[in-house]
């Protein structure tokens, strides 16, 4: 983007006397005549001229605006539906669950939220849960885990790291999985029902695997003693976190998705960068090319309300979204690209005008002074 001129510095590149002074050089005090030592290395000397800067601005403009438009359109084509089921509102079906939460209750509180989709979701639909005001990025929270423990290290399993305190031991029994992150694992369960026009409900199958990073699932997280069947034995001598209702080896019936390699658990353990975040919960796979994955119509979200957010004014959401090459709906990127592109283009024009008006001055400098 800048003018270039490859020029070995032309001046006095050659010392005619160099050969004559060979005798002096022989005793080593005369500095070597190398380009490096004489600071004459060939070099590219870019300079900011109108010829380089202005095209650069126009180029940025011309590249960014189309990209921005493309991103914007793509983003707009993505279907996204979001429903807040926290239940702060008295009219909300989950209000009672929100209000009457107690850690000790054994009876799950259930609520169902009806909603309708105006447009059909054509391709695979991704179901997320979103939390707000939840500081998964708090320093003490982030470090409150033991990766070696989660990686199935047997020693760590029974000797959780200090970092996990105060969730390392419960009644002097090591906790598995230890730490604040694991302890606060999101444990609402959601089920989605399509309400047919005839008021009958059919449950939409939710795929619970494939929601975690491949590396997490296959490398980072491992059950102690390998991913064998006998998880109960593997976790012998440990107890489950205080906020949990069941031990880690009962997270799922599928042995491929149980224990530390339970994907819901893995997803939760990948802490969010910001206090408002969403995490992938389930995938609704497209069945046939004929029918949309989620046709427009009425739906019901059945929530088993286990996760308390009332104390810290948190919010819980359920999000349904389709995906494009660039991920989910993201209008910001497109708009930002269009804006930056336009500003650059505009700057280019302004600089061009300024250059036209004042630029000639620089070619006749008062150097002689």
């Amino acid at each position, binding site marked *: 983007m800048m003018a270039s001129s490859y020029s070995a510095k032309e001046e006095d590149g050659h010392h005619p006397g160099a050969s004559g002074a060979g005798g002096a050089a022989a005793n080593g005090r*005369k500095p070597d005549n190398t380009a490096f030592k004489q600071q004459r290395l060939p070099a590219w000397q870019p300079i900011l001229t109108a010829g380089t*800067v202005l095209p650069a601005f126009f180029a940025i403009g011309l590249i960014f605006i189309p990209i921005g438009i493309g991103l914007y359109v793509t983003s707009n084509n993505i279907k996204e539906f979001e429903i807040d089921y926290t239940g702060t509102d008295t009219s909300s079906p989950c209000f009672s669950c929100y209000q009457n939460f107690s850690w000790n209750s054994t009876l799950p509180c259930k609520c169902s939220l009806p909603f309708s989709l105006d447009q059909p979701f054509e391709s695979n639909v991704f179901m997320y849960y979103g939390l707000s005001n939840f500081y998964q990025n708090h320093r003490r929270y982030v470090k409150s885990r033991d990766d070696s423990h989660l990686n199935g290290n047997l020693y760590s399993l029974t000797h959780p790291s200090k970092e996990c305190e105060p969730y390392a031991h419960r009644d002097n029994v090591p906790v598995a999985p230890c730490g604040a992150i694991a302890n606060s694992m999101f444990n609402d369960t959601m089920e989605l029902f399509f309400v047919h026009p005839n008021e009958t409900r059919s449950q939409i199958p939710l795929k619970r695997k494939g929601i975690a990073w491949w*590396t997490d699932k296959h490398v980072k997280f491992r059950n102690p003693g390998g991913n064998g069947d006998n998880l109960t034995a593997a976790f012998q001598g440990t107890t489950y976190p205080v906020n949990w209702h069941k031990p880690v080896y009962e997270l799922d019936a599928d042995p491929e998705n149980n224990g530390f390699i339970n994907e819901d658990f893995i997803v939760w353990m990948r802490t969010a*960068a910001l206090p408002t975040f969403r995490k992938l919960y389930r995938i609704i796979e497209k069945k046939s090319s004929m029918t949309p994955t989620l046709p427009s119509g009425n739906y019901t979200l059945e929530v088993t309300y286990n996760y308390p957010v009332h104390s810290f004014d948190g919010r819980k959401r359920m999000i349904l979204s389709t995906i494009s090459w660039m991920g989910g709906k993201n209008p910001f990127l497109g708009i930002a690209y269009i804006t930056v592109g336009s500003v650059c283009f505009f700057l280019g024009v302004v600089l061009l005008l300024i*250059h036209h008006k004042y630029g000639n001055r620089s070619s006749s400098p008062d150097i002689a002074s």
Partner: protein
Amino acid sequence: RILTRDSPLALMRVPIQCLRKRSNCIVTSKYNIITFLPVNLFEQFQEVANTYFLFLLILQLIPQISSLSWFTTIVPLVLVLSITAVKDATDDYFRHKSDNQVNNRQSQVLLNGILQNEKWMNVRVGDIIKLENNQFVAADLLLLSSTEPHGLCYIETAELDGETNMKVRQSLSVTSELGDPDKLAQFDGEVVCEPPNNKLDRFSGTLYWRDCKYPLSNQNMLLRGCVLRNTESCYGLVIFAGPDTKLMQNSGCTKFKRTSIDRLMNTLVLWIFGFLVCMGVILAIGNAVWERKAGSLFQNFLPWDPSVNNFLFSAFLSFWSYVIILNTVVPISLYVSVEVIRLGHSYFINWDRKMYCSHSNTAAEVRTTTLNEELGQVEYIFSDKTGTLTQNIMSFNKCSINGHAYGTCTMQKNKDFSSWNPLADGGLCFYDGSLLEAVKTGDLVAHEFFRLLSLCHTVMSEEKTEGALVYKAQSPDEGALVTAARNFGFVFCSRTPGTVTVHELGRPVTYTLLAILDFNNIRKRMSVIVRNPEGRIRLYCKGADTVLFDRLHPCNHELMNITTNHLNEYASDGLRTLALAYRDLTEDEWEEWAELYRGAGRTVDFREDRLAAAYEEIEQDMMLLGATAIEDKLQEGVPETIAILSLANIKIWVLTGDKQETAVNIGYSCKMLTDDMTEIFIINGHTVQGVREEDAMKEEETQGLGKACSLGNGFSEKPKNPTSPTSLLESISGEFALVISGHSLAHALEADMEYEFVETVSVCKAVICCRVTPLQKALVIELIKRHKKAVTLAIGDGANDVSMIKTAHIGVGISGQEGIQAVLASDYSFAQFRFLQRLLLVHGRWSYLRMCRFLCYFFYKNFAFTMVHFWFGFFCGFSAQTVYDQYFITLYNIVYTSLPVLAMGIFDQDVPEQRSLEYPKLYEPGQLNLLFNKREFFICITQGIYTSVVLFFVPYSVLSHATQSNGIALADYQTFAVTTATALVIVVSVQIALDTGYWTAINHFFVWGSLGSYFTILFVLHSDILFSLFPQQFNFLGSAQNTLKQPVVWLTIALATVICIAPVLAFRFLKVELKPQLSDTVHTLLFHQKKRKPGVSLGRLGRSGSHRSGYAFAHQEGFGELITSGKNMRLSSLALATFASRHSASWIDTLRKKKHGNIQNTPSTPPAPNFNCDC
């Protein structure tokens, strides 16, 4: 033998036993092997920055505070400490080496009656040592005896005070008889003397020997640093040794020099530190609020630590945690990087072939590597004269005989005189065929001209071997004149107190020397009265044209005019001129005057004045012969260098121990003073401290200065003096120069005059201080440093320049001449004065530019890096969670971003070296400190903060809702960290690419290499293997792969980069476009039209016919008397015994009296006489 000393106040004798231990060993090194580690570490931890990092390290060990792992601080700290330690060790090693070299010089010490070779360092106070001709004096010695008659010996003190003429020292008569070692061994005198001090020209003490007291003065002392000349050998008693010697006392204490950038940097670091505390406080308050509002409610998921039970304590801890996290705004690698860059620049100076002098085979040498960028900011240069500006070689250059100018044609190198004159000296460079012809054909005036030169002088000759005459001239001027006469056939052969023998065109002629009318400063001439073998009496006189022309016979008028023209011509070439004249005396006239002269000589009171009057009497009605012009050979390229440097707005001062006339002459010849200067003020009031009646004189002097001020300032209310040059306008626009003598300077430097003096000199373009002592040189520099806040550079070659070299911000030593004291004390040394322009305009300018660019970028990148944490604080509950991976934080400054900026700091160039010499104005930004100052710093950190905002909020906005293309949410912490870090590395790399003006292969390698290393290290750190080995430490497993394959991430990075860089680009473009700096223009110009010729004429070599006195004899009075008294003659050569009868009084007493009188009584010449009387 017991030697004692006392303080002058309390005459208390200290037995020498304790002083005896004083050895002559000089130690300038700081460490030895054992003390190195503790002392060096202690010194390093005196650096605020290092202590600060140590403190951080300790903080990090507290688990509640530790927001980073311990290695993020200790790795850089250890790196920094060890690099500095290695450098210090190397420096000290070289100091040890040079100390050893000096300390191991050999000298002959008389031990138990036998002369033994001893190293200098083993010489002790009280030892008697033997010196031989041309040896350096090892310590301050009391001269006991010498091989010359009367215990005389000659020394050259150039190393000490810069004066090159020889000086005479004489031993006490009682000790001068102790000629041989046996007698000396029995010498058991006792010396009581003043304590060691730095006064070179004073010594007082008493010798107690054989129950007698003998006063000792400086006349009996040989000081360390002097060189014994023209004396076969001598013996001396060591009075002061090692650090007590006057030389060492004068060298002042070694100060650690810091550059102004260093100081600025320290201030800025303190500011940043304050800023850091502010941020810490803000975030701690935020933490308190958050913990109270949100954190306390969030305890179900994240309970407070048991020890931290309330939000205030939590805030307190969070403050320290943030201090740790944000510590990278005070960049630890800053100091070490700066050192590395300076080291690089130093090597470039060492390697510069254009600063290599093939003649003396010395390359430039950087002795202090920490000052380079200050070379780009010099405003004042203080230069020594002898040996620095001049070569200290006088050459007979031109002459005008009877109205004919000779030697004007181009110099033919070294014509062989020996063909017709076997006694000719091959060393003379002057040759003019027509003159030789004139001499051969018997031109009487030419003969008389050279006869004068061969007779009228105080040179001593010595015939070492047959036909090889060696002249011992105590001033090089005289030597040159006599040598010139010698080559033209008038060979001065020998002298006795009463005769002078000259070979005139091969024929020996002996003249009877009737009188020597000696030189002194007021007379500015010397004469001899001789009787030739035919019995005719003739007075030969040579002297300053101004005085001589007044005493010519009226019939010389026409010739005088012609000669005056010639003299003007010579003077404007900066040559030292002398006019020559003779007068025939009749026997009666002579007798009559001789009576008067003897009468004057006999008087006790006002002998001086009476003699002067007598001289005046006879030096009348003289016939002009012609004039000579002697070149005080300048070093190569001096006028050009001075011209270029003054075009670069550098003020050049000459500080010399030499005479005013000599100094002014050199000022002219090297174009410091020019005839088109409006006014040259000369201040040479003499005042002696302690004398009350001098008040009036001081007043006068003050007036002189005041006048100068009112002229110089131009803005003072009204010109008080009607004679002052007319209009205000003129006095503003005019160029002024100031010549001030050491005596006046002493007053000017007093507290009450200081300010006025500075005011005056600051309007002067050139200042010459003559007759200054080494200490005064330092004081002048101190004054300028204090008042002008300007960067000063001192350049000199002798030991007398050491104090000034050490005082100035930058000291430069000229090497390759005699002596190495100046070089040892200097920061830079090279062989030729002209290399100074390259040192300043090329290396200095580049160093400054590079350092400024480096610092700007460095602060920028650290702010961009660190401030992201600050913004993140608002989104993570002010919990001191880092945005980046801990390895990234550790490696960012030392791996990912260090090398490109180092490469820029070492290799960058804005304009080629050739151009910075062609356009000296390019030097100005450095003097004005435009490239890096507080304003620039704020711009840099603003840019850094802006970048950090972009780097945090763009990923924040994009990623908070984004998902991967497989539906997994992107906003997890690790993805965010990788995205931000990658964007940061890319943005700062693009920024360095913009900042780099000179892309060598190395820059390419480093910039691309840094980017490459970032990605490589990233992938390695996030790899499976490391995780499986240390799952706790490398838990970012897979982040790099997962994150960097997302198009959204790359789009985010591109967006952030453009948002960061585009404004900078636009801003820079506008700056070049609307307010181009000269360097931009030159650069652009070069780019557009490479072949355009520069329109700068170097050096305004204007000449006009001004008339200056050229009598610039580096001459000392008293030698005439010395000769006629015959004291300095070897007995063997004293054929005639006449000497005994005349002037039997000890010449040395008279000499001393005279000198004393000079100081006491000589009234000051009126201040500011105008030297510039146009005619």
